[in-house]
């Protein structure tokens, strides 16, 4: 397929197929339903399995089974459904199974609405399930980037044997943009000698299990995870920089909102304010390294912009660690700020103190 116009939700599906994923288990929810719509047609065409589950709880557990069986597997949902998947995510981590989960976020809490939001940042990045664990989180900002990051997501999941979440919002899921679908995608996936396949002549049994009844053994399992997470922190931070080299004020945003914020930086520069943008692409591991770099240059202050009440803000503050004021502007509940609005907020930011502000 050459250059084509594609919906973000369709790109999650096509990106997964190009990454060698042939198994999808999911349950309908707006604004991500085009993911299952697309895969229900597309997976049978390439010999894959599409299954509509009875709930998100079942979806993630089917994904758990398929991952245990050695497949590259995808499930997708939106905020309330992702809440139901938290149990499964904890078990996937505990059993060290690779799996990709797409969350096309909507406004919460509770039933909320179906408008674009980023209110699940904490849940995605800090872990919404039980136990001491991390899930890698990737945040694409365009339909083309969805295609690319889906491949990255499956590779990281297999490499680290850990679930990976691809976090978008209603805008990203619903919008159409041109995508280049060069090449054929991946034809083979890494071998998984640990997978349950029936022993089939193997002399040892494969057991997929997160139970560790002896505390010392469970501690060792946790420390093994910690070791893995340290490696991920060192090696997998990804971010995009825009006009940061001489920027006195750095705007920080992820996903589609980062595009609004780039437009703010452009407008600020038109008005003589040297603004730049850091767009975290990995939300976990959070790209601390990006902040070290800009603080060494010119950055005098930061403005974090989110579709929530200030969640990534905390990670930015940890990265900046008191060295510069970190301001915040957020619109929760499904409202998306305009360029003009953010511009006004930008003009109010002080180089002296952020006063711990949240809105």
């Amino acid at each position: 397929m050459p250059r084509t116009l594609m919906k973000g939700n369709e790109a999650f599906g096509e990106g997964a197929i190009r990454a060698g994923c042939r198994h999808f288990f999911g349950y309908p929810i707006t604004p991500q339903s085009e993911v299952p719509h697309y895969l229900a047609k597309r997976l049978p065409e390439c010999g894959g399995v599409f299954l509509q589950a009875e709930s998100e709880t079942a979806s993630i557990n089917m994904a758990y089974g398929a991952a245990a069986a050695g497949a590259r597997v995808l499930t997708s949902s939106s905020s309330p459904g992702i809440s139901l998947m938290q149990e499964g995510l904890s078990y996937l981590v505990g059993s060290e199974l690779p799996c990709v989960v797409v969350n096309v976020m909507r406004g919460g809490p509770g039933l909320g609405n179906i408008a674009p939001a980023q209110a699940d940042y904490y849940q995605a990045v800090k872990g919404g399930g039980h136990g001491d664990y991390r899930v890698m989180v990737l945040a694409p900002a365009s339909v083309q980037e969805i295609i690319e990051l889906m491949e990255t997501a499956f590779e990281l999941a297999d490499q680290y044997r850990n679930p990976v979440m691809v976090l978008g919002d209603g805008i990203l899921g619903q919008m159409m943009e041109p995508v280049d679908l060069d090449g054929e995608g991946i034809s083979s996936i890494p071998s998984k000698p640990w997978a349950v396949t029936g022993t089939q002549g193997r002399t040892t049994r494969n057991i997929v299990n997160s139970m560790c009844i002896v505390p010392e053994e469970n501690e060792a399992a946790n420390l093994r995870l910690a070791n893995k997470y340290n490696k991920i922190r060192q090696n997998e931070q990804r971010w995009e920089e825009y006009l940061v080299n001489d920027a006195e004020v750095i705007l920080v945003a992820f996903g589609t909102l980062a595009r609004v914020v780039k437009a703010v930086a452009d407008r600020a520069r038109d008005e003589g304010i040297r603004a730049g943008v850091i767009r975290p692409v990995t939300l976990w591991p959070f790209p601390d390294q990006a902040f070290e770099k800009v603080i060494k240059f010119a950055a005098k202050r930061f403005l974090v912009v989110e579709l929530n009440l200030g969640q990534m803000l905390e990670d930015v503050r940890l990265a900046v660690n008191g060295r510069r004021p970190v301001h915040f502007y957020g619109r929760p509940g499904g409202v998306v700020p305009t360029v003009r609005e953010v511009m006004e907020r930008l003009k109010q930011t002080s180089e002296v103190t952020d006063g711990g502000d949240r809105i």
Partner: protein
Amino acid sequence: MATVFERPRALTDKPFHYCPGCTHGIIHRLVAEVVDELGVREQTVGVGPVGCSVFVYEYFNCDMVQAAHGRAPAVATGIKRVHPDRFVFTYQGDGDLAAIGTAEIVHAAARGELISTIFVNNAIFGMTGGQMAPTTLIGQKTTTTPFGRDVRANGFPLRVAEMLSTVEGAVYVARVSVHSPVHVARARKAIRKAFEIQLQGLGFSLVEVLSTCPTNWGMTPVEALKWLETKMIPYYPLGEFCTPGTGRQDND
């Protein structure tokens, strides 16, 4: 000298952790014997529950997956859809299957998922300390029904085999017991039938096995076997509730 009795190959050497008089061990053995008989051990993936039988992955000598509480049918679905030519079974207790995992088992059955389920009903939550299960009998005392199960407060015991036998995708559903040698032999036959149904690709199959819990029932093993026979079977009749040959609701 001919060997007439030995440990099934489909069981590991690990000693069972079950309480004295608990019939889980018998049921494990039956499952293992049938797996051996059908010659599918190396093609088998088992899925274990949460509950007393949480350690089944240490006992069955085949590839095993440990599932979250109640989710074994969904996990088994994922495995089977990746490896349609393997034999996949779940082993679940009554808390796991009939309370927290009700949705997963009903929909696995409704899809006619090509998996087999061994459902162990001992009318109580064992591992967590003898609480009421969905299958606890009316009047039965448990740690959460200290005055006996009262239908006004706790509702009625769930007859899982009968309920699932109404689902079109379930082609073999039976209830058996292991309280006497003759019933153990019948249970073995039912398990074999259920597994064959899967191997023939006919649909979902489930065998509900009535089982004892002397520890949490507060009885000796012998009293427990008697209680199963005289109290449980009248409420949970034995028989085949649907079979590919004879259709639905054919109990004895």
